[in-house]
Protein backbone atom coordinates (compact mmCIF):
# COMPACT_ATOMS: atom_id res chain seq x y z
CA UNK A 1 0.00 0.00 0.00
CA UNK A 2 2.74 2.44 0.77
CA UNK A 3 4.97 1.56 -2.17
CA UNK A 4 4.47 4.88 -3.85
CA UNK A 5 8.24 5.24 -4.29
CA UNK A 6 8.23 2.63 -7.05
CA UNK A 7 5.43 4.41 -8.85
CA UNK A 8 7.04 7.84 -9.05
CA UNK A 9 9.08 6.83 -12.08
CA UNK A 10 6.05 6.05 -14.24
CA UNK A 11 3.27 8.45 -15.10
CA UNK A 12 0.00 8.02 -13.26
CA UNK A 13 -2.37 5.62 -14.91
CA UNK A 14 -4.99 8.33 -14.86
CA UNK A 15 -4.65 12.00 -14.08
CA UNK A 16 -7.46 14.51 -14.02
CA UNK A 17 -6.52 18.18 -13.93
CA UNK A 18 -9.00 20.91 -13.09
CA UNK A 19 -11.84 19.19 -14.87
CA UNK A 20 -15.04 21.15 -15.34
CA UNK A 21 -18.24 19.78 -16.86
CA UNK A 22 -21.96 20.12 -16.62
CA UNK A 23 -25.41 19.80 -18.16
CA UNK A 24 -27.17 22.61 -19.92
CA UNK A 25 -26.63 25.78 -17.98
CA UNK A 26 -25.35 24.19 -14.80
CA UNK A 27 -21.83 23.11 -13.90
CA UNK A 28 -21.73 19.81 -12.07
CA UNK A 29 -17.94 19.65 -11.83
CA UNK A 30 -15.99 22.72 -10.90
CA UNK A 31 -12.34 22.00 -11.32
CA UNK A 32 -11.67 18.45 -10.15
CA UNK A 33 -8.09 17.24 -9.88
CA UNK A 34 -6.97 13.77 -8.90
CA UNK A 35 -4.36 11.19 -9.81
CA UNK A 36 -4.60 7.43 -9.83
CA UNK A 37 -1.55 5.21 -9.57
CA UNK A 38 -1.32 2.13 -11.76
CA UNK A 39 -2.72 -1.06 -10.30
CA UNK A 40 -4.64 0.69 -7.57
CA UNK A 41 -8.20 1.44 -6.60
CA UNK A 42 -9.32 5.00 -6.04
CA UNK A 43 -12.71 5.40 -4.43
CA UNK A 44 -14.71 8.51 -5.39
CA UNK A 45 -17.17 9.25 -2.63
CA UNK A 46 -19.73 11.85 -1.71
CA UNK A 47 -23.41 12.51 -1.36
CA UNK A 48 -26.00 12.31 -4.11
CA UNK A 49 -25.51 15.04 -6.67
CA UNK A 50 -21.92 15.68 -5.66
CA UNK A 51 -20.75 15.06 -9.20
CA UNK A 52 -19.33 11.55 -8.94
CA UNK A 53 -21.13 10.13 -11.95
CA UNK A 54 -20.49 13.30 -13.91
CA UNK A 55 -16.80 12.87 -13.21
CA UNK A 56 -16.73 9.42 -14.74
CA UNK A 57 -18.73 10.60 -17.71
CA UNK A 58 -16.41 13.51 -18.33
CA UNK A 59 -13.43 11.18 -18.22
CA UNK A 60 -14.86 8.56 -20.56
CA UNK A 61 -16.20 11.12 -22.99
CA UNK A 62 -19.92 10.63 -22.50
CA UNK A 63 -20.13 14.33 -21.79
CA UNK A 64 -17.68 16.81 -23.13
CA UNK A 65 -15.62 18.61 -20.49
CA UNK A 66 -15.84 22.37 -20.45
CA UNK A 67 -12.38 22.82 -19.06
CA UNK A 68 -9.42 20.92 -17.68
CA UNK A 69 -7.60 17.84 -18.88
CA UNK A 70 -7.75 14.08 -18.70
CA UNK A 71 -4.45 12.25 -19.05
CA UNK A 72 -4.11 8.52 -19.57
CA UNK A 73 -0.57 7.39 -18.84
CA UNK A 74 0.54 10.90 -19.60
CA UNK A 75 -1.34 11.13 -22.91
CA UNK A 76 -3.92 13.87 -23.23
CA UNK A 77 -7.26 12.25 -23.97
CA UNK A 78 -9.51 15.11 -22.98
CA UNK A 79 -12.84 15.34 -24.72
CA UNK A 80 -12.45 12.32 -26.97
CA UNK A 81 -15.64 10.53 -27.99
CA UNK A 82 -16.57 7.55 -25.82
CA UNK A 83 -15.87 5.10 -28.66
CA UNK A 84 -12.32 6.39 -28.87
CA UNK A 85 -11.78 6.38 -25.13
CA UNK A 86 -12.95 2.77 -25.03
CA UNK A 87 -10.51 1.86 -27.76
CA UNK A 88 -7.85 3.84 -25.96
CA UNK A 89 -7.94 1.69 -22.88
CA UNK A 90 -10.62 3.24 -20.69
CA UNK A 91 -13.54 0.97 -19.81
CA UNK A 92 -16.56 2.63 -18.26
CA UNK A 93 -19.22 0.56 -16.57
CA UNK A 94 -22.04 3.08 -16.26
CA UNK A 95 -24.50 3.65 -13.49
CA UNK A 96 -27.38 1.23 -13.89
CA UNK A 97 -25.00 -1.35 -15.32
CA UNK A 98 -25.85 -0.90 -18.97
CA UNK A 99 -26.70 -4.48 -19.78
CA UNK A 100 -28.12 -4.75 -23.29
CA UNK A 101 -31.07 -6.94 -22.40
CA UNK A 102 -32.08 -7.79 -25.95
CA UNK A 103 -28.74 -9.50 -26.58
CA UNK A 104 -27.57 -12.76 -25.05
CA UNK A 105 -24.91 -12.97 -22.37
CA UNK A 106 -22.40 -14.13 -24.92
CA UNK A 107 -23.30 -11.35 -27.34
CA UNK A 108 -22.87 -8.77 -24.61
CA UNK A 109 -19.44 -10.17 -23.84
CA UNK A 110 -18.36 -10.38 -27.46
CA UNK A 111 -19.45 -6.81 -27.95
CA UNK A 112 -16.84 -5.71 -25.45
CA UNK A 113 -14.01 -6.96 -27.62
CA UNK A 114 -15.37 -6.49 -31.13
CA UNK A 115 -13.08 -3.63 -31.95
CA UNK A 116 -10.00 -5.65 -31.08
CA UNK A 117 -8.05 -7.13 -33.89
CA UNK A 118 -7.29 -10.79 -34.09
CA UNK A 119 -9.81 -13.57 -33.80
CA UNK A 120 -7.60 -15.54 -31.42
CA UNK A 121 -7.27 -12.61 -29.06
CA UNK A 122 -11.02 -12.14 -28.98
CA UNK A 123 -11.69 -15.84 -28.51
CA UNK A 124 -9.12 -16.01 -25.73
CA UNK A 125 -10.71 -13.05 -23.99
CA UNK A 126 -14.09 -14.75 -24.13
CA UNK A 127 -12.70 -18.01 -22.76
CA UNK A 128 -10.99 -16.13 -19.96
CA UNK A 129 -14.22 -14.34 -19.09
CA UNK A 130 -16.08 -17.63 -18.84
CA UNK A 131 -13.37 -19.08 -16.68
CA UNK A 132 -13.39 -16.23 -14.24
CA UNK A 133 -17.16 -15.86 -14.19
CA UNK A 134 -18.60 -19.35 -14.12
CA UNK A 135 -22.13 -18.11 -13.73
CA UNK A 136 -21.87 -16.32 -17.07
CA UNK A 137 -20.64 -19.47 -18.76
CA UNK A 138 -23.68 -21.30 -17.46
CA UNK A 139 -26.00 -18.69 -18.95
CA UNK A 140 -24.16 -17.81 -22.08
CA UNK A 141 -27.02 -18.22 -24.54
CA UNK A 142 -29.69 -16.68 -22.36
CA UNK A 143 -31.03 -13.21 -22.97
CA UNK A 144 -29.16 -10.84 -20.74
CA UNK A 145 -32.42 -9.46 -19.45
CA UNK A 146 -33.04 -12.73 -17.61
CA UNK A 147 -30.04 -12.29 -15.31
CA UNK A 148 -30.33 -11.32 -11.68
CA UNK A 149 -28.91 -8.05 -10.38
CA UNK A 150 -25.67 -9.57 -9.19
CA UNK A 151 -25.22 -11.58 -12.36
CA UNK A 152 -25.72 -8.45 -14.43
CA UNK A 153 -23.04 -6.65 -12.50
CA UNK A 154 -20.70 -9.54 -13.17
CA UNK A 155 -21.67 -9.43 -16.83
CA UNK A 156 -20.92 -5.76 -17.31
CA UNK A 157 -17.62 -5.99 -15.50
CA UNK A 158 -16.65 -9.04 -17.53
CA UNK A 159 -17.74 -7.23 -20.66
CA UNK A 160 -15.60 -4.25 -19.77
CA UNK A 161 -12.63 -6.53 -19.20
CA UNK A 162 -13.02 -8.07 -22.65
CA UNK A 163 -11.33 -4.99 -24.06
CA UNK A 164 -8.31 -5.50 -21.78
CA UNK A 165 -8.52 -1.95 -20.52
CA UNK A 166 -5.88 -0.15 -18.59
CA UNK A 167 -8.31 1.84 -16.54
CA UNK A 168 -11.71 0.69 -15.32
CA UNK A 169 -14.32 3.26 -14.32
CA UNK A 170 -16.95 1.63 -12.12
CA UNK A 171 -20.07 3.65 -11.38
CA UNK A 172 -22.02 2.52 -8.33
CA UNK A 173 -21.61 -1.23 -8.77
CA UNK A 174 -23.29 -1.93 -5.45
CA UNK A 175 -26.53 -0.17 -6.38
CA UNK A 176 -29.54 -2.41 -5.85
CA UNK A 177 -27.51 -5.42 -4.80
CA UNK A 178 -27.81 -7.48 -1.65
CA UNK A 179 -24.93 -7.04 0.87
CA UNK A 180 -23.55 -10.49 0.16
CA UNK A 181 -23.42 -9.75 -3.54
CA UNK A 182 -21.87 -6.35 -2.89
CA UNK A 183 -19.10 -8.08 -0.98
CA UNK A 184 -18.60 -10.39 -3.94
CA UNK A 185 -18.28 -7.47 -6.32
CA UNK A 186 -15.83 -5.70 -4.07
CA UNK A 187 -13.76 -8.85 -3.73
CA UNK A 188 -13.70 -9.16 -7.47
CA UNK A 189 -12.57 -5.56 -7.87
CA UNK A 190 -9.76 -6.12 -5.40
CA UNK A 191 -8.66 -9.21 -7.35
CA UNK A 192 -8.57 -7.18 -10.53
CA UNK A 193 -6.33 -4.67 -8.86
CA UNK A 194 -3.97 -7.50 -7.84
CA UNK A 195 -3.93 -8.52 -11.51
CA UNK A 196 -2.71 -5.05 -12.43
CA UNK A 197 -5.88 -3.15 -13.31
CA UNK A 198 -6.33 0.51 -12.34
CA UNK A 199 -9.76 1.22 -10.98
CA UNK A 200 -11.69 4.42 -10.35
CA UNK A 201 -14.63 3.38 -8.22
CA UNK A 202 -17.61 5.66 -7.63
CA UNK A 203 -19.66 4.50 -4.69
CA UNK A 204 -22.44 5.65 -2.45
CA UNK A 205 -21.58 2.79 -0.14
CA UNK A 206 -18.43 4.45 1.17
CA UNK A 207 -17.70 1.81 3.76
CA UNK A 208 -17.46 -1.02 1.23
CA UNK A 209 -15.50 1.11 -1.18
CA UNK A 210 -12.93 2.22 1.37
CA UNK A 211 -12.47 -1.38 2.50
CA UNK A 212 -10.75 -2.25 -0.77
CA UNK A 213 -9.50 1.13 -1.96
CA UNK A 214 -5.98 2.46 -1.80
CA UNK A 215 -6.96 6.07 -2.09
CA UNK A 216 -10.16 7.98 -1.48
CA UNK A 217 -11.40 11.22 -3.02
CA UNK A 218 -14.41 12.96 -1.51
CA UNK A 219 -16.53 15.24 -3.67
CA UNK A 220 -19.06 17.79 -2.59
CA UNK A 221 -21.00 20.09 -4.89
CA UNK A 222 -18.63 19.46 -7.76
CA UNK A 223 -15.40 20.01 -5.92
CA UNK A 224 -12.84 17.84 -4.17
CA UNK A 225 -13.01 18.35 -0.45
CA UNK A 226 -10.62 15.64 0.61
CA UNK A 227 -8.00 13.37 -0.93
CA UNK A 228 -6.25 10.84 1.27
CA UNK A 229 -5.14 7.28 1.66
CA UNK A 230 -8.19 5.13 2.19
CA UNK A 231 -7.23 4.04 5.66
CA UNK A 232 -6.82 7.63 6.77
CA UNK A 233 -10.21 8.57 5.35
CA UNK A 234 -11.85 5.64 7.04
CA UNK A 235 -10.61 6.77 10.43
CA UNK A 236 -11.34 10.48 10.00
CA UNK A 237 -14.61 10.48 11.92
CA UNK A 238 -15.43 14.10 11.28
CA UNK A 239 -14.97 13.80 7.53
CA UNK A 240 -16.86 10.56 7.42
CA UNK A 241 -19.84 11.94 9.23
CA UNK A 242 -19.89 15.20 7.37
CA UNK A 243 -19.64 13.94 3.83
CA UNK A 244 -20.09 10.22 3.86
CA UNK A 245 -22.82 9.65 6.34
CA UNK A 246 -21.22 7.14 8.67
Amino acid at each position, binding site marked *: MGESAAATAEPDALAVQDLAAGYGGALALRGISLTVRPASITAVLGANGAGKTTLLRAI*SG*VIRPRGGRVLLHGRDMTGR*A*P*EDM*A*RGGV*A*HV*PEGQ*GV*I*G*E*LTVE*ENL*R*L*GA*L*WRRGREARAAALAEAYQRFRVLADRRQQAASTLSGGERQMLVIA*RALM*AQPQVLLLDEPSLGLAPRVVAQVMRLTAELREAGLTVLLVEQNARSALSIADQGVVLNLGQVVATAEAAALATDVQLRQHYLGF
Partner: protein
Amino acid sequence: MAELGQLTLGGLSVGMIYAAIALSLVLIWRATRILNYAQGGMAMFTTYLAFEVINHTGSYWAGFAAALLAGLLLGGVIERVVIRPAENKPPLNAIIVTIGLLIFLEGLAGVIYGGQYRSFPAAFSIDGLHIGSAALGISANDVFVAVAVLVAALLLAALFRYTAVGLRLRAAAFSPPVARLLGVRVGRMLTLGWALAGLIGALAGVLVSPSTFLYPNSMDSVFVLGFTAAVIGGLDSPVGAVAGGLILGVALSYVSGYLGSDLVPLFGLAALVVVLMIRPEGLFSATSARQV
Protein backbone atom coordinates in the same frame (compact mmCIF):
# COMPACT_ATOMS: atom_id res chain seq x y z
CA MET B 1 -62.01 -22.52 -54.81
CA ALA B 2 -59.52 -22.10 -57.57
CA GLU B 3 -60.14 -18.40 -57.42
CA LEU B 4 -59.33 -18.34 -53.72
CA GLY B 5 -56.04 -20.05 -54.42
CA GLN B 6 -55.24 -17.60 -57.19
CA LEU B 7 -56.08 -14.62 -55.04
CA THR B 8 -54.00 -16.00 -52.21
CA LEU B 9 -50.95 -16.57 -54.33
CA GLY B 10 -51.30 -13.20 -55.96
CA GLY B 11 -51.72 -11.59 -52.59
CA LEU B 12 -48.62 -13.27 -51.24
CA SER B 13 -46.56 -11.95 -54.09
CA VAL B 14 -47.76 -8.37 -53.67
CA GLY B 15 -47.53 -8.80 -49.95
CA MET B 16 -43.81 -9.39 -50.32
CA ILE B 17 -43.46 -5.88 -51.71
CA TYR B 18 -45.26 -4.44 -48.71
CA ALA B 19 -43.08 -6.63 -46.54
CA ALA B 20 -39.97 -5.18 -48.13
CA ILE B 21 -41.06 -1.61 -47.52
CA ALA B 22 -42.16 -2.52 -44.01
CA LEU B 23 -38.80 -4.18 -43.37
CA SER B 24 -36.91 -1.09 -44.44
CA LEU B 25 -39.10 1.08 -42.22
CA VAL B 26 -38.53 -1.24 -39.26
CA LEU B 27 -34.78 -1.19 -39.84
CA ILE B 28 -34.71 2.57 -39.66
CA TRP B 29 -37.14 2.77 -36.77
CA ARG B 30 -35.10 0.37 -34.67
CA ALA B 31 -31.88 2.17 -35.41
CA THR B 32 -32.90 5.80 -35.12
CA ARG B 33 -36.48 5.81 -33.83
CA ILE B 34 -37.51 7.78 -36.87
CA LEU B 35 -40.25 6.82 -39.31
CA ASN B 36 -38.80 7.50 -42.73
CA TYR B 37 -41.65 9.01 -44.74
CA ALA B 38 -39.26 9.43 -47.62
CA GLN B 39 -38.70 5.68 -47.98
CA GLY B 40 -41.09 5.43 -50.93
CA GLY B 41 -39.66 8.52 -52.54
CA MET B 42 -36.14 7.15 -52.24
CA ALA B 43 -37.26 3.89 -53.84
CA MET B 44 -38.90 5.82 -56.67
CA PHE B 45 -35.74 7.76 -57.27
CA THR B 46 -33.51 4.71 -57.42
CA THR B 47 -35.98 3.07 -59.80
CA TYR B 48 -35.67 6.04 -62.15
CA LEU B 49 -31.93 5.52 -62.01
CA ALA B 50 -32.38 1.89 -62.92
CA PHE B 51 -34.62 3.05 -65.73
CA GLU B 52 -31.83 5.22 -67.11
CA VAL B 53 -29.27 2.45 -66.84
CA ILE B 54 -31.55 -0.05 -68.54
CA ASN B 55 -32.22 2.37 -71.38
CA HIS B 56 -28.54 3.09 -71.84
CA THR B 57 -27.20 -0.42 -71.54
CA GLY B 58 -30.14 -2.53 -72.63
CA SER B 59 -29.56 -4.84 -69.69
CA TYR B 60 -32.24 -5.30 -67.04
CA TRP B 61 -29.83 -6.77 -64.53
CA ALA B 62 -27.44 -3.87 -64.88
CA GLY B 63 -30.31 -1.59 -63.96
CA PHE B 64 -31.33 -3.88 -61.13
CA ALA B 65 -27.85 -3.83 -59.67
CA ALA B 66 -27.57 -0.08 -60.19
CA ALA B 67 -30.80 0.48 -58.27
CA LEU B 68 -29.64 -1.60 -55.33
CA LEU B 69 -26.30 0.12 -55.20
CA ALA B 70 -27.94 3.51 -55.50
CA GLY B 71 -30.34 2.62 -52.71
CA LEU B 72 -27.44 1.69 -50.47
CA LEU B 73 -25.62 4.93 -51.18
CA LEU B 74 -28.69 7.14 -51.05
CA GLY B 75 -29.76 5.73 -47.70
CA GLY B 76 -26.33 6.23 -46.20
CA VAL B 77 -25.89 9.73 -47.55
CA ILE B 78 -29.33 10.85 -46.43
CA GLU B 79 -28.73 9.63 -42.89
CA ARG B 80 -25.35 11.26 -42.66
CA VAL B 81 -26.33 14.60 -44.16
CA VAL B 82 -30.00 15.18 -43.50
CA ILE B 83 -31.05 12.93 -40.67
CA ARG B 84 -28.02 13.07 -38.38
CA PRO B 85 -28.68 16.68 -37.33
CA ALA B 86 -32.28 15.77 -36.57
CA GLU B 87 -31.54 12.75 -34.43
CA ASN B 88 -31.13 14.65 -31.21
CA LYS B 89 -33.91 17.11 -31.77
CA PRO B 90 -37.56 16.76 -30.85
CA PRO B 91 -39.21 13.87 -32.72
CA LEU B 92 -41.58 16.21 -34.56
CA ASN B 93 -38.61 17.80 -36.29
CA ALA B 94 -37.55 14.47 -37.73
CA ILE B 95 -41.06 13.80 -39.01
CA ILE B 96 -41.18 17.12 -40.81
CA VAL B 97 -37.68 16.60 -42.18
CA THR B 98 -38.54 13.24 -43.72
CA ILE B 99 -41.75 14.67 -45.17
CA GLY B 100 -39.73 17.48 -46.66
CA LEU B 101 -37.29 14.97 -48.07
CA LEU B 102 -40.16 13.03 -49.61
CA ILE B 103 -41.67 15.93 -51.46
CA PHE B 104 -38.23 17.17 -52.46
CA LEU B 105 -37.48 13.84 -54.12
CA GLU B 106 -40.90 13.66 -55.78
CA GLY B 107 -40.67 17.23 -56.98
CA LEU B 108 -37.16 16.70 -58.27
CA ALA B 109 -38.23 13.62 -60.17
CA GLY B 110 -41.08 15.66 -61.62
CA VAL B 111 -38.73 18.37 -62.75
CA ILE B 112 -36.22 15.99 -64.29
CA TYR B 113 -38.54 13.41 -65.76
CA GLY B 114 -41.92 15.06 -65.93
CA GLY B 115 -45.13 13.50 -64.71
CA GLN B 116 -45.83 10.96 -67.42
CA TYR B 117 -46.19 7.31 -66.58
CA ARG B 118 -43.27 5.28 -67.86
CA SER B 119 -43.30 1.55 -68.26
CA PHE B 120 -40.66 -0.34 -66.39
CA PRO B 121 -39.60 -3.81 -67.51
CA ALA B 122 -40.20 -6.91 -65.45
CA ALA B 123 -37.37 -9.36 -64.84
CA PHE B 124 -39.30 -12.36 -66.04
CA SER B 125 -42.42 -13.18 -67.95
CA ILE B 126 -45.64 -11.74 -66.64
CA ASP B 127 -47.78 -14.38 -68.29
CA GLY B 128 -49.84 -16.39 -65.91
CA LEU B 129 -48.37 -19.68 -64.83
CA HIS B 130 -50.30 -22.88 -65.24
CA ILE B 131 -50.14 -26.28 -63.70
CA GLY B 132 -51.60 -28.46 -66.39
CA SER B 133 -54.66 -26.47 -67.42
CA ALA B 134 -55.26 -24.76 -64.09
CA ALA B 135 -54.25 -21.12 -63.87
CA LEU B 136 -52.24 -20.30 -60.77
CA GLY B 137 -53.04 -16.60 -60.84
CA ILE B 138 -49.42 -15.59 -60.64
CA SER B 139 -46.65 -15.20 -63.17
CA ALA B 140 -43.01 -16.18 -63.24
CA ASN B 141 -42.20 -12.61 -62.37
CA ASP B 142 -44.44 -12.77 -59.32
CA VAL B 143 -42.50 -15.79 -58.12
CA PHE B 144 -39.27 -13.90 -58.72
CA VAL B 145 -40.59 -10.98 -56.67
CA ALA B 146 -41.43 -13.20 -53.74
CA VAL B 147 -38.15 -15.08 -53.90
CA ALA B 148 -36.09 -11.91 -54.24
CA VAL B 149 -37.61 -10.30 -51.18
CA LEU B 150 -37.40 -13.53 -49.21
CA VAL B 151 -33.73 -13.95 -50.05
CA ALA B 152 -33.02 -10.33 -49.15
CA ALA B 153 -34.84 -10.68 -45.83
CA LEU B 154 -32.98 -13.89 -44.98
CA LEU B 155 -29.62 -12.39 -45.91
CA LEU B 156 -30.40 -9.41 -43.74
CA ALA B 157 -31.41 -11.63 -40.85
CA ALA B 158 -28.21 -13.61 -41.20
CA LEU B 159 -26.19 -10.42 -41.25
CA PHE B 160 -27.73 -9.27 -38.02
CA ARG B 161 -27.61 -12.60 -36.23
CA TYR B 162 -24.26 -14.06 -37.19
CA THR B 163 -21.83 -11.30 -38.08
CA ALA B 164 -19.82 -8.87 -36.00
CA VAL B 165 -21.27 -5.98 -37.97
CA GLY B 166 -24.73 -7.28 -37.22
CA LEU B 167 -23.96 -7.39 -33.52
CA ARG B 168 -22.71 -3.84 -33.65
CA LEU B 169 -25.79 -2.75 -35.56
CA ARG B 170 -28.06 -4.32 -33.00
CA ALA B 171 -26.14 -2.89 -30.07
CA ALA B 172 -26.20 0.55 -31.65
CA ALA B 173 -29.95 0.26 -32.15
CA PHE B 174 -30.82 -1.13 -28.73
CA SER B 175 -28.61 1.01 -26.58
CA PRO B 176 -26.49 3.67 -28.29
CA PRO B 177 -24.81 5.10 -25.18
CA VAL B 178 -23.74 1.70 -23.88
CA ALA B 179 -22.58 0.64 -27.34
CA ARG B 180 -20.39 3.75 -27.48
CA LEU B 181 -18.78 2.87 -24.21
CA LEU B 182 -17.87 -0.49 -25.71
CA GLY B 183 -16.07 1.06 -28.64
CA VAL B 184 -18.86 0.78 -31.21
CA ARG B 185 -18.91 3.66 -33.64
CA VAL B 186 -22.62 4.21 -33.30
CA GLY B 187 -22.80 6.95 -35.91
CA ARG B 188 -21.42 4.66 -38.58
CA MET B 189 -23.82 1.95 -37.58
CA LEU B 190 -26.78 4.27 -37.96
CA THR B 191 -25.56 5.25 -41.40
CA LEU B 192 -25.20 1.60 -42.28
CA GLY B 193 -28.69 0.87 -41.01
CA TRP B 194 -30.14 3.54 -43.28
CA ALA B 195 -28.03 2.28 -46.16
CA LEU B 196 -29.39 -1.24 -45.75
CA ALA B 197 -32.92 0.11 -45.52
CA GLY B 198 -32.30 2.08 -48.69
CA LEU B 199 -31.15 -1.11 -50.38
CA ILE B 200 -34.31 -3.00 -49.44
CA GLY B 201 -36.47 -0.07 -50.47
CA ALA B 202 -34.74 0.12 -53.82
CA LEU B 203 -35.38 -3.58 -54.31
CA ALA B 204 -39.07 -3.03 -53.61
CA GLY B 205 -39.10 -0.19 -56.10
CA VAL B 206 -37.77 -2.14 -59.04
CA LEU B 207 -39.93 -5.12 -58.20
CA VAL B 208 -43.19 -3.22 -58.03
CA SER B 209 -42.69 -0.67 -60.80
CA PRO B 210 -43.60 -2.99 -63.68
CA SER B 211 -47.16 -3.13 -62.38
CA THR B 212 -47.57 0.41 -61.04
CA PHE B 213 -45.65 2.16 -63.86
CA LEU B 214 -43.01 4.67 -62.96
CA TYR B 215 -43.91 8.26 -62.18
CA PRO B 216 -42.95 10.66 -59.41
CA ASN B 217 -45.76 9.61 -57.09
CA SER B 218 -45.75 5.93 -58.04
CA MET B 219 -44.44 4.71 -54.70
CA ASP B 220 -46.92 6.69 -52.60
CA SER B 221 -49.58 4.03 -52.21
CA VAL B 222 -47.01 1.25 -51.90
CA PHE B 223 -45.35 3.20 -49.12
CA VAL B 224 -48.63 3.77 -47.34
CA LEU B 225 -49.45 0.08 -47.46
CA GLY B 226 -45.92 -0.82 -46.43
CA PHE B 227 -46.30 1.53 -43.51
CA THR B 228 -49.59 -0.14 -42.64
CA ALA B 229 -47.91 -3.54 -42.82
CA ALA B 230 -45.15 -2.34 -40.51
CA VAL B 231 -47.67 -1.04 -38.01
CA ILE B 232 -49.64 -4.29 -38.17
CA GLY B 233 -46.53 -6.29 -37.52
CA GLY B 234 -45.14 -3.88 -34.97
CA LEU B 235 -42.57 -1.22 -35.84
CA ASP B 236 -40.01 -2.95 -33.65
CA SER B 237 -40.25 -6.35 -35.27
CA PRO B 238 -38.62 -7.37 -38.56
CA VAL B 239 -40.47 -10.68 -38.48
CA GLY B 240 -43.66 -8.73 -37.89
CA ALA B 241 -42.90 -6.56 -40.89
CA VAL B 242 -42.75 -9.55 -43.20
CA ALA B 243 -45.77 -11.18 -41.61
CA GLY B 244 -47.70 -7.92 -41.72
CA GLY B 245 -46.86 -7.47 -45.36
CA LEU B 246 -48.04 -10.94 -46.29
CA ILE B 247 -51.22 -10.67 -44.25
CA LEU B 248 -52.05 -7.30 -45.76
CA GLY B 249 -51.20 -8.44 -49.26
CA VAL B 250 -53.47 -11.45 -49.05
CA ALA B 251 -56.29 -9.52 -47.36
CA LEU B 252 -56.23 -6.78 -49.98
CA SER B 253 -56.12 -9.38 -52.71
CA TYR B 254 -59.33 -10.86 -51.39
CA VAL B 255 -60.91 -7.41 -51.19
CA SER B 256 -59.90 -6.67 -54.73
CA GLY B 257 -61.09 -10.02 -56.01
CA TYR B 258 -64.43 -10.25 -54.20
CA LEU B 259 -65.37 -6.64 -53.58
CA GLY B 260 -63.71 -4.71 -56.36
CA SER B 261 -60.35 -3.03 -56.71
CA ASP B 262 -61.75 0.46 -56.01
CA LEU B 263 -62.19 -0.46 -52.40
CA VAL B 264 -58.59 -1.46 -51.84
CA PRO B 265 -57.28 1.97 -50.71
CA LEU B 266 -60.21 2.45 -48.37
CA PHE B 267 -59.75 -1.01 -46.92
CA GLY B 268 -56.06 -0.34 -46.40
CA LEU B 269 -56.92 2.84 -44.56
CA ALA B 270 -59.48 1.01 -42.47
CA ALA B 271 -56.97 -1.68 -41.60
CA LEU B 272 -54.47 0.90 -40.43
CA VAL B 273 -57.04 2.74 -38.36
CA VAL B 274 -58.25 -0.48 -36.76
CA VAL B 275 -54.74 -1.57 -35.82
CA LEU B 276 -53.87 1.84 -34.42
CA MET B 277 -57.03 1.87 -32.36
CA ILE B 278 -56.86 -1.63 -31.01
CA ARG B 279 -53.28 -2.71 -30.84
CA PRO B 280 -50.96 0.10 -31.82
CA GLU B 281 -47.84 -1.78 -30.87
CA GLY B 282 -48.62 -4.30 -33.59
CA LEU B 283 -49.28 -7.99 -33.57
CA PHE B 284 -45.74 -9.21 -33.16
CA SER B 285 -44.11 -6.65 -30.99
CA ALA B 286 -42.67 -7.98 -27.75
CA THR B 287 -43.09 -4.76 -25.85
CA SER B 288 -46.25 -3.95 -23.96
CA ALA B 289 -48.53 -1.23 -25.28
CA ARG B 290 -46.24 1.71 -25.46
CA GLN B 291 -47.59 5.11 -26.14
CA VAL B 292 -48.12 5.35 -29.83
